């Protein structure tokens, strides 16, 4: 049987950034009505490839073929004209503008704003993703923002929808909603290019996969016919050493105690902390889960001393009230802080060095007696490490900015290094430190934490032992269900 031509074919795509080959002769075929996974570790070249497809980057070699005919995609506008829509990993919405205005910006037609608003509310209801066109983005939750992104693409009536790590910011329940929408899109004959490194997800919803490693295609396969471990091996090029961990109930003294901490929002789009209580004991890792933007930044600022608590007793270290003490004073008491990297990502060449510097530095000079480590995402770790040694000298570290440049693939933590870092955190705890990890990555938290809390809208759930936590129960908490007001 003669197969119909693929909707999109990328043939021999090569893209270099200086010495780094981000994509090396990459081939990819997406059939009509197919949900196609693009799998790979961070830095494998996934983002580079889709940016080329969406016209944001130009390949150094290779070509794109759309419905059987070679095309030059010169710009995002050209990609949209072909029928390609893209939902970005880091939301590309305009905070101060309304939903309708955000959608209008991605439409190239001559519709008036009122017409767009009208069509938007009809279409969004039809897809089961209701949205109020008149609301400003900053008032929306993360899940709603993603709806806006998806609707913005669907309003263009695309044949191919590209989703870049769509579930990394969603609660498990929100992710279910997304999968239902994707199934509907497939039923309408649209194709989806689904970028992810979450294997179970891909095995569930995708019927084809292209796996990238180090900028090269290592396999085309049907993920449903593979095991998760098999996909992981292809993605990482070897077995990943499982982390050795026994969840324990720490019996050590309380290193850090937070009681009834409330703090107004840091900025207009921030979240106010309301009545936060937690205890962190020596010898344990306490994980704080939650979708980004639920007060994690504010909590970190309050703990580190970047923002002072309303009264000294709200935060105590080793029994001493430090709520009004500054960062350095808290450091002298033995706290260490690793902030979330806000600029983007550090540079690959610097990685090994700085990473070792952090790890050995902590171990040798006893700097981290009770380490407070904030990690929003494992994949951001390199950047955070880079900043660990000149924390808060201002956000515009010129080198980091020069190197980040959007989402360049010139960085990445390979799976081995990631495991090393996690292991190091746990060893630190076992050596008597108290470690607090703030992250969006549930898998990571389940792996390394002894106890877990969830943040939602500035409130913190009581801590539960990790052994008793399930993804479902955590997901409900992340969505605000069952949280005491």
């Amino acid at each position: 049987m003669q197969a119909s031509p693929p909707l999109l074919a990328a043939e021999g795509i090569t893209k270099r950034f200086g010495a780094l080959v981000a994509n090396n002769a990459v081939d990819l075929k997406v059939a009509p009505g197919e949900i196609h996974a693009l799998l790979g570790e961070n830095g494998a070249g996934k983002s580079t490839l889709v940016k080329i497809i969406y016209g944001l980057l130009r390949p150094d070699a290779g070509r794109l073929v759309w419905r059987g005919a070679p095309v030059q995609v010169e710009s995002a506008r050209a990609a949209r004209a072909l029928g390609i829509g893209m939902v970005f990993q880091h939301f590309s919405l305009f905070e101060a503008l309304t939903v309708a205005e955000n959608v209008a910006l991605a439409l190239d037609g001559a519709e008036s704003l009122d017409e767009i608003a009208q069509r938007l509310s009809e279409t969004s209801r039809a897809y089961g993703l209701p949205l109020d066109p008149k609301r400003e983005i900053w008032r929306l939750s993360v899940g709603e923002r993603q709806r806006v992104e998806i609707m913005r693409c669907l309003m263009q009536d695309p044949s191919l929808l590209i989703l870049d790590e769509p579930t990394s910011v969603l609660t498990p329940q929100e992710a279910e909603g997304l999968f239902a929408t994707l199934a509907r899109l497939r039923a309408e004959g649209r194709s989806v290019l689904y970028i992810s490194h979450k294997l179970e997800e891909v095995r569930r919803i995708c019927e084809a996969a292209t796996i990238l490693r180090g900028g090269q295609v290592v396999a085309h396969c049907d993920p449903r016919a593979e095991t998760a471990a098999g996909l992981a091996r292809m993605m990482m090029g070897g077995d990943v050493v499982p982390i050795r961990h026994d969840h324990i109930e720490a019996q050590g003294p309380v290193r850090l105690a937070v009681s009834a901490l409330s703090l107004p929002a840091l900025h207009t789009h921030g979240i106010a902390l309301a009545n936060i209580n937690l205890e962190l004991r020596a010898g344990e890792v306490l994980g704080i889960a939650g979708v980004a933007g639920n007060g994690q930044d504010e909590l970190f600022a309050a703990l580190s001393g970047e923002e002072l608590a309303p009264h000294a007793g709200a935060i105590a270290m080793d029994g001493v009230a430090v709520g009004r003490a500054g960062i350095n004073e808290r450091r002298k008491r033995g706290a260490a802080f690793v902030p979330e990297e806000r600029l983007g990502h550090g540079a690959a060449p610097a990685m090994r060095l700085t990473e070792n510097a952090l790890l050995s530095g902590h171990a040798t000079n006893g700097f981290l007696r009770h380490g407070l480590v904030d990690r929003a995402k494992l994949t951001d770790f390199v950047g955070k490490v880079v900043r660990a040694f000149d924390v808060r000298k201002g956000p515009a570290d010129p080198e980091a900015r020069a190197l980040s440049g959007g989402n360049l693939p010139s960085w990445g933590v390979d799976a081995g290094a990631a495991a090393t870092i996690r292991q190091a955190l746990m060893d630190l705890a076992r050596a008597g430190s108290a470690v607090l990890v703030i992250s969006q990555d549930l898998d990571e938290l389940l792996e390394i934490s002894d106890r877990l809390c969830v943040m939602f809208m500035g409130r913190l759930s009581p801590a539960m032992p990790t052994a008793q936590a399930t993804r479902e129960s955590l997901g409900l908490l992340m969505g605000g269900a069952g949280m005491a007001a």
Partner: protein
Amino acid sequence: MTLFEAIILTIITASTPLLIAALGELVVERAGVLNLGVEGMMIIGAAAGIAAAITTGSSTLGVLVAVLAGMALSLVFAALVLGLAANQVAAGLALAILGLGLSGVIGAPFVGVQRAGIGKIEIPWLSDIPFLGPLLFRQDPFVYASVALVIGVWWFLTKSRAGLVLRAVGENHAAAHALGYPVRRIRLLAILFGGGCAGLAGAYMSLVYTPFWTSGMTGGRGWIALAIVVFASWLPFRAMVGAYLFGALTILQLHAQSAGVPLPSQFLAALPYLITILVLVLIMRARRGGVAGPASLGVPFVPDR
């Protein structure tokens, strides 16, 4: 004409250059660029404007040259901050100093040369309305232009598609770029508009307000225009309120001085600045939870291509 009418008329004349310059800067900042060089562009407009007007004998040409001079200086700024992604604060301050110095050179041959100011346009019938007529309908062309500009900028920013794109660029330039909008070209146009407005405001100073050249004649109005933009929360009609508030305070403190108010004249002269700052702070505090300035304001943009 009563004293009251006279005071109102002078307030309008004192406020108009502030308003024009502030509107230009408002558009620039809405596009995410902070150009602190308004003072420099304004005074270069004043110098170039009167030089051209005296040389050619045409006020129209003077105005045109002033606008072009403001734009030319803003082009230098654009080359630095857009082309080289230089620090906008530093580039803007440099522009202010450069403009002041350059204006002295341009204006030097024309020091003390008097010429008739640009006349007022009387709108028939309407200008005969008692009291309101002379105030609203017997003004120089700049006053009418400044009001038209307020409405035009408001319409552009809130109603037009191009204005939406400009706001988007100022809000999140990376996202605008990702959607395929030419961020730097849009910002260049905004900067040129701001330069043109500053030049026009300068022309008002040297061709209408005090129709001769003295060095440093803008007297810090460019800086006030910058403050007005913030005070106005980047909204055109509020910028009008702000410009008129500052203009009124300036004129009223002069009258207070001549009326012999028992306060040091230095204090009275400082009053408009103090009150403007106070209002600015109060408005900023009252707006907690609302929308602050454009989110990308002052952040250099380098496309990742």
